[in-house]
């Protein structure tokens, strides 16, 4: 088991290095050079050369990449933007916690709703609650979160005034306003995963409930709830693994939802940077997101193997 985890971890780190290099090459080769953006199109070659030397942009790309990566790993320093001169660490410290909180809230909401819903529709298979859950699941995977967000703002905020129509009230402004400002976005972000995870729970549990050992346990006269608990132990591992993966995916959709609700998180940082052609900032934000995504996949993989005895022995 330990060997497996170490192996996966090493592979994840290698992937992160490789993907970082691809990202670095993209921003260096496909985008305008920072010197041109800062100095304008009328700048002379000499001025550009000076700018490049000052910012270390005249070195080979691989050297620049290793230098950038080295600072992140060794000093926790993401560097400074060539365009705005802002320190990335400050930008990340400002916007990352907001996005992180939004995703965590949406994730907790998704799990808290999906598990009971999935279990209920498996236990009551074919009854009306199962049908309602199915309709809900199809709608949940099909209605784009950002449109749902627009509709929620239109009706729950503008029309009825139950929630603020957007923006973000930090915790320092009080718990009530804070929670009200994040509930609609968390709902819009989480609903897709409620649908996905509840269907996963249902099909996984139904499969287990159909096995011989559950039938044996029932025929021995075990109470229904105890049989259900045994069944859940075997039904939940795949759901846990998909949930961990979902956590990684949610950061991507959080960008769109934040944009809808005007929340000053990573979305604003990324889109502002794109607007200002601040590719260093773009690269930093995307790298952080990719690292989170890879970490979530790693956790999903390890959990899947650890919780599933059939896979635990396999490489």
């Amino acid at each position: 088991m330990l060997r497996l985890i170490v192996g996966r971890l090493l592979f994840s780190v290698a992937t992160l290095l490789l993907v970082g290099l691809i990202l670095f090459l993209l921003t260096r080769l496909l985008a305008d050079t920072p010197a041109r953006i800062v100095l304008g199109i009328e700048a002379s070659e000499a001025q550009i050369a000076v700018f490049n030397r000052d910012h270390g942009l005249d070195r080979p790309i691989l050297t620049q990449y290793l230098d950038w990566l080295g600072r992140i790993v060794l000093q926790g320093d993401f560097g400074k933007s060539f365009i705005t001169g802002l320190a990335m660490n400050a930008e990340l410290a400002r916007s990352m916690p907001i996005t992180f909180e939004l995703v965590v809230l949406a994730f907790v909401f998704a799990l808290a709703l999906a598990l009971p819903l999935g279990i209920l529709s498996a236990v009551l298979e074919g009854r009306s609650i199962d049908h309602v859950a199915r309709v809900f699941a199809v709608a949940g995977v099909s209605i784009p979160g950002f449109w749902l967000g627009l509709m929620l703002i239109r009706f729950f905020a503008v029309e009825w005034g139950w929630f603020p129509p957007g923006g973000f009230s930090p915790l320092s402004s009080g718990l009530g306003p804070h929670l009200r400002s994040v509930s609609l976005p968390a709902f819009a972000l989480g609903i897709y995963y409620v649908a996905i995870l509840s269907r996963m729970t249902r099909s996984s549990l139904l499969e287990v409930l159909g096995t011989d050992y559950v039938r044996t346990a029932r025929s021995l006269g075990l109470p229904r709830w105890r049989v259900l608990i045994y069944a859940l132990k075997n039904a939940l591992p795949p759901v846990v693994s998909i949930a961990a993966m979902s956590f990684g995916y949610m950061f991507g959709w959080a960008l769109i939802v934040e944009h809808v609700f005007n929340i000053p998180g990573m979305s604003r940082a990324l889109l502002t940077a794109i607007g200002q052609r601040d590719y260093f900032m773009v690269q930093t934000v995307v790298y952080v997101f990719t690292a989170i995504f890879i970490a979530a996949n790693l956790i999903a993989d390890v959990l899947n193997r650890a919780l599933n005895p059939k896979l635990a022995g396999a490489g």
Partner: protein
Amino acid sequence: MNRGIRRLVVRLGGWSGAVGASIVLAIALAALLAPWIAPYDPVSLNLERKLQAPDAAHWFGTDQAGRDILSRAIWGARVSLMVGVLAVVIGLVGGVGLGLVAAYYSGGLVEQAIMRTVDAIASIPLLIWAIAVVGIIGVGPVLIGPFRFANEFKLLVLIGFLYMPGLARVTYTVAQIEAVADYVRARRVQGARDLAIMFGDVLPNCLSPLIVQGTLLVAIGIVVEASVSFVGLGVQPPTPSWGTMLADSRNYLFSGEWWLPVFPGLAISVTVVGFNLLGDALRDMLDPRRSTGRLIA
């Protein structure tokens, strides 16, 4: 009820499958026939008739530039379906090839190399990279020879590329079982070439889960395109698209023009429901034992 219709419904995996297939067919027809069925020109401005509520002349109302929203929604189906379908085609071409070769040469260096590459590509989060890559390259059209590729082509190539790992794994999972079957050994004894066995004999037996996943991935691609267009990095004006229509509607959230966000959003949702219902029905029909998990986003 007409027995023919009933038989068709049963074949489509019950009512939900039939509904899904009908939606997909209707949207595809709307996209193909847009120039003939759209009641108005989707891009011509008419400021005298701007922000009209739905009425007999404009069923879905008009937008801030007086353009007919129904016509724009019909034309918007073109770009959405194109991105959704072509991305899956690219993903299938790449993914099936990689998965088949890895499964066929199972146990060797080729398998390791392919599947580790697939794992590495799978660690790239789709939506963030779509936004960032378009943001870095820019939203302008790409000129290749005499052809002019609008921004949405960058998007669909990227989505297709990032679909490859998922589809490669699906192919690999199913093909691995097939590759050791007796009929493959028999074909080899007959002297058939490896490529002929892979694509002629193994592939046809792996198609069911690929059709199912491909259908479901069209739905995801449509939502990704709409999302990226919504933040201004996808389809560029004046081309009508559902995502940019929703982006425009944001300016009118506080005034009374509810039809601006409602109809484009319904267009996306109904289309995506169609592909999801069809995909689920195809799965119940073609792959009842669920040989592969559902690809998510």
